[in-house]
């Protein structure tokens, strides 16, 4: 009875027959249907991206006349790209820069604010702590979309609606990020080190900087990335806050392009190639940063 238990560990991973012997062939055969289903999912995810690539190669007249999934090689890609960059005196580049500014600035600020708040909530006991946490948690449940309109009204009252700040400020507070930072700080910052530091007389701020932050870095990167994507993808907030084209991020920029559609003959071509150029860097960034994600954080499955 003890012999199979010992080999069980390795055998279990390779697939085990009823008699306990590894059965490689059986495993393969059982894997065909799951593999096909998974590949169908992959195709579902990738075909629209492929369609975008194919469509971006088509010149002004070709988009509606040639076969949809076959790229064209008549120079349409360069033609579209040139037209896009020339559109409204380089508006596309300005929007791209704004998207980067909002996303990086907002995500950095939100990460710092969340790190401090999460650490404060995880590592201190203070009167009102439960109230603070509940207050912030309810913030997760209030749809950001619903807040955007009153935020606009309020920021308009103090005169900064329409400015870069009107988009950056609301992006700095993210209740969900605070919630994640709290879970993470509780899991990875050792109380013993904090206690030892206190006995040595280190200030609370110093403890945060030199004891707490370092082990929290993987979680903070995840928080940064989640917030970065949330801001990059955000539409309603900038759509409501901003009125001048030179402050638009890409999402609002595309919307404005689609809305002035009729007086621009090739607007579909421009939007299609614009979408492609807007998503390719982000997809590459994601693939590159994959190893730094700690998405187990999101489901709360952090193992200290």
């Amino acid at each position, binding site marked *: 009875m003890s012999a199979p238990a010992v080999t069980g560990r390795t055998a279990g991973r390779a697939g085990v027959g009823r008699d306990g012997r590894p059965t490689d062939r059986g495993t393969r055969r059982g894997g065909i249907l799951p593999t096909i289903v998974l590949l169908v999912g992959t195709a579902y995810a990738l075909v629209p991206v492929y369609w975008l690539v194919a469509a971006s190669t088509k010149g002004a007249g070709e988009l509606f006349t040639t076969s949809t999934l076959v790229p064209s090689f008549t120079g349409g890609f360069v033609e579209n790209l040139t037209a896009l960059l020339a559109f409204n005196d380089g508006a596309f580049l300005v929007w791209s820069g704004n998207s980067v500014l909002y996303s990086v600035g907002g995500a950095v600020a939100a990460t710092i604010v969340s790190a401090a708040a999460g650490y404060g909530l995880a590592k201190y006991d203070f009167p009102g702590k439960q109230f603070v946490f509940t207050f912030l948690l309810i913030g997760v449940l209030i749809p950001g979309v619903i807040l955007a309109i009153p*935020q606009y009204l309020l920021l308009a009252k103090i005169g900064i609606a329409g400015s870069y700040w009107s988009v950056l400020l609301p992006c700095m507070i993210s209740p969900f990020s605070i919630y994640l930072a709290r879970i993470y700080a509780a899991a990875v910052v050792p109380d013993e080190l904090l206690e030892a530091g206190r006995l040595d007389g280190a200030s609370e701020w110093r403890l945060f900087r030199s004891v707490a932050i370092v082990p929290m870095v993987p979680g903070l990167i995840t928080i940064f990335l989640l917030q970065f994507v949330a801001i990059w993808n955000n539409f309603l907030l900038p759509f409501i806050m901003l009125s001048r084209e030179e402050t638009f991020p*890409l999402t609002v920029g595309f919307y404005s392009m689609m809305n002035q559609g009729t007086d621009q003959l090739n607007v579909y071509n421009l*939007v299609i190639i614009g979408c492609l150029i807007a998503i390719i860097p982000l997809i590459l960034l994601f693939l590159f940063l994959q190893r730094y994600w700690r998405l187990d954080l999101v489901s709360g499955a952090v193992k200290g």
Partner: protein
Amino acid sequence: MTSQTQSVRGTGRVASGPAPGDASAANVAAEASARPALPPVRRRPLRPRLAPWLFVGPALVLAAGLLLAPLVYTLVLSFRGRQVAGGGLGLATEVWVGLDNYVRSLTDPALYASFGRMLVYALIAVPVTMGLALLFALLLDHLATRFRRFSRVSIFVPYAVPGVIAALMWGFMYLPGVSPIRDAFAAVGLPEPDLMGPVSVFFAVANVTIWGSVGFNMVILYTSLRGLPQELYESARLDGCSELQLALRIKVPLIVPGVILTGLFAIIGALQVFSEPNMMMTLTNSITSDWVPMMLVYRDAFVTNDLYGGAATAMIITLVTLVASLGLLKVLQRRAFGGES
């Protein structure tokens, strides 16, 4: 999770002041920060009492200014209205109108119609998203499946695509003339379907959301699955448990908290859908400017300039959302959040 509760309890000691090493504490503190080391016995207990507030302070200020204040302001606005005084001189003053805006909102058929459409959209988008995410996560965790890494990365890719861009991409793919889907129907001799008709448009919008969010939820559930103890599977396999039984009877029940949490976020996301239908509106007539509740609020507040009515509708939606999500949370709390908070 146990370390969480322990550490929270452990912090009880923070406020309980220093006992043994005060002399050295004063020394190091003096050189660490330039604060006077004079009465250490009196000062030490005070610091940790202030410190947590300094840490949560920025978050609290921002939350009060950008979450609480706007809500209160909307609440106030929803009870006010504009009254044109002096017979047509156009001098409008703001007056208190009580529940008038709410009565107007709640008796407007457009509100119910938009809620209905949102519900239809959510009933398609949420279950399909969660079902596919769970299915793909289990397949990724299934040892016999091939191309796992490639599939995981590929299915995750749409998450990097902004919702409005996804809506545009799919919108073009539904559009007659550039639609590969319609082409495929034509190629096999079937009549080309109207992908953005009055009924199909619900599936069209839901599909954009599903496409964009399956991968993210899949990765979260997959990470939860990876966190389960492998020993569990081995004994089950030795007992003759098939991979399917293993998935349904052992894996799924164990990651229920993750499923509930991601499901809750999917529901909250569905309640506030705006960008995708708003963008697709530029490509089809099947989507009206009051298609879902948030579009209705936007139209009232910014297009028809009925700020007060918009505020009342926004408060109603907020209330519905809060009741729905808090209710769900309450029902599911013990499973979703374990013993936390």
